[in-house]
């Protein structure tokens, strides 16, 4: 299997006797694991989503779902197990209506706030334990709709910790207001204020006359560029885009609306446009403990070509996206999107319409890739500007704080 060739090391605070298991969503080709997952979902009364289409053998250990068969179609209406705002959120994730690391985390936190508002402690139960148990099936459901991102994982860890720290003598109303305030504070500190701090550092690195290259649509990078433009820096932007998501168009729309002069190219024109570029700004989905940057597929290609042309590559990432995983390649843990997205209709003809009929043909629609730290010159976080190799130091400092 694909997993036999590569290995993931999941770091964390382990005692030497406990062996951390691999998450089940990277072991899809192992029937025992799939059976275990099916049993768990049955217990939680969540439907199991089935894979779609032929999977490329190198990625057969990952799930591949079709957008035309969302999980919500298999749920009974009204669902007694899943809260309606979570059902809505799951649908928004699986259809791609809510996309982007920050957007997904914020939507998740708002949905959880609604869940907490509607929650009542059953008799003979404690809020701190029962609420955590109530959240578990929701998280499994969301995971089935679309695999959780690193930022969402960190947010969920934080919420679970806050809930379990509620003292038992606390009254329900008080506890609920406290939790809602905690969530608001988390969003404010880790996302909104972090973006302001990062913009402050990033603007120092933008000088007049710069030509800045951005890839896809990162909310943080767009924010930085808009702030820099407000502060009257003279620069122009080159937006690089790629199929099938074409997220660069959204970034282009936002930047042009502000009045920033932009150029739009597809990623195949990268080596043509790069001699003009003075800096590359990239967003990140997550920063791994060994300094690797996990981001939208195509990012490592941009970093590689920029390094060859000696153009500095700056990655902007909030600290809540730092995760303790270690990964050296893009195969072992990734996400496979709907393969039908790769089909394109031109002049009334869709070439790959019947790709399922060709037994030896597989369509691969990857979502993420990892960039090694040698290609990244600088990481801008809310704690300051650090080299890519200093990510474990920041994780260590953060763990000390908590």
């Amino acid at each position, binding site marked *: 299997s694909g997993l036999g060739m590569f290995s993931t090391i999941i770091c964390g605070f382990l005692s030497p006797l406990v062996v951390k298991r691999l998450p089940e969503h990277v072991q899809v080709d192992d029937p025992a694991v799939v059976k275990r997952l099916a049993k768990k979902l049955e217990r939680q009364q969540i439907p199991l989503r089935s894979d779609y289409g032929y999977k490329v053998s190198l990625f057969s250990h990952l799930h591949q779902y079709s957008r035309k068969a969302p999980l919500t179609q298999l749920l009974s209406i009204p669902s007694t197990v899943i809260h309606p705002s979570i059902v809505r959120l799951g649908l928004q994730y699986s259809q791609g209506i809510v996309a982007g690391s920050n957007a997904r985390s914020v939507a998740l936190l708002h949905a959880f706030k609604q869940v907490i508002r509607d929650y009542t402690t059953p008799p003979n139960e404690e809020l701190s334990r029962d609420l955590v148990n109530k959240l578990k099936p929701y998280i499994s459901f969301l995971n089935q709709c679309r695999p959780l991102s690193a930022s969402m994982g960190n947010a969920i860890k934080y919420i679970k910790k806050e809930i379990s720290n509620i003292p038992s003598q606390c009254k329900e109303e008080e506890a609920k207001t406290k939790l809602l305030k905690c969530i608001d504070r988390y969003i404010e500190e880790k996302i909104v204020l972090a973006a302001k701090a990062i913009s402050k550092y990033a603007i120092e*690195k933008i000088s007049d006359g710069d030509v800045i290259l951005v890839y896809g649509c990162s909310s943080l990078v767009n924010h930085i560029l808009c702030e820099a433009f407000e502060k009257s820096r003279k620069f122009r932007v080159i937006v690089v885009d790629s199929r099938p998501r074409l997220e660069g168009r959204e970034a282009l729309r936002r930047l042009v609306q502000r009045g920033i002069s932009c150029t739009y190219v597809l990623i195949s024109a990268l080596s043509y446009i790069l001699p003009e570029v003075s*800096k590359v700004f990239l967003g990140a989905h997550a920063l791994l403990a060994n300094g690797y940057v996990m981001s939208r597929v195509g990012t490592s290609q941009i970093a590689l070509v920029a390094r060859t042309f*000696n153009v*500095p590559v*700056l990655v902007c990432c909030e600290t809540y996206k730092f995760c303790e995983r270690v990964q050296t390649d893009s195969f072992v843990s990734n996400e496979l999107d709907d393969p039908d997205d790769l089909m394109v209709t031109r002049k009334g003809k869709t070439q790959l319409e019947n790709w399922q009929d060709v037994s030896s043909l597989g369509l691969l629609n990857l979502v993420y890739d990892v960039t090694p730290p*040698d290609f990244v*010159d*600088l990481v801008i976080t809310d*704690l*300051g*500007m*650090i*080299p890519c*190799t*200093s990510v474990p*130091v*920041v994780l260590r*400092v953060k763990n000390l704080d908590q």
Partner: protein
Amino acid sequence: QEEKRLVEYFRTQVRQDPEVPSAVAAIRTLLEFLKRDQSETILGLRENLTQTIRRLEEADSSVAVSSGGELFLRFISLTSLEHPDLSQCKKVMVERGELFLKKISLSRSKVAKLCHTFIKDGAKILTHSSSRVVLKVLESAAADKKRFTVYVTESQPDSAGRQMADKLQNLNIPVTVVLDAAVGYIMEKVDLVIVGAEGVVESGGIINKIGTYQLAVCSKAHNKPFYVVAESFKFVRLYPLNQQDVPERFKYKADTLKAVEDLAEEHPMIDYTPPSLITLIFTDLGVLTPSAVSDELIKLYL
């Protein structure tokens, strides 16, 4: 008025003891200022201090003065948090300042002790321009009865390399002066390269006399180890991405900055060497890889 006197004090310090690093002279001056200062509040004290640091930077535009000043300011802010009463605070500051000065005067010998073991018998060393830390390292290696030869680059425009060669000859170390342009030619003969640094930046790179970057690129191409020796007070909170990104105020001498209108005509005195070209950095905190510099800085400043 007071500031002019302090700048004079700084210049006398440097003149009287040419061995003292400029950052140490700056910190001594700031300590003197602290003793003379008349301000009533801690905020006033800090403001006057920042003003003085700016005057000192105008007098001597090297990176070391800037880093020394920032370290002192940081250390003052920490002390002022612990002792809100001004006179008490000042006494503690002066005490700690003296202690700090004593510690860093020993840092050069600490670096030399760490580094000279990397020089093996029969080694051929290449160094750039004139650095007092490198001199100390070579002195300790010679005192350890090691036999080695040194090549020094001439280092124009001020021919500082020749002064270095004279000093080494006084220590009876065989030394040859080479042209700056001959670095690529001589690289295959040498075994290792040791340079000092005016400043060590957050990325793990260094800021040093112009010509260091060329030296580093050549040594990388020939797979020769490139060692940097620097005391820890030279760590500075800059993160240059390339040569252009180094602030203008460090690139040229203080007099040039004041006198000349169009800096594009002037030749810079320093350049930036990125961390990918550096093998190890020897400091009084230990032997560090370039990526560990950021770790130390986070510990120091965050």
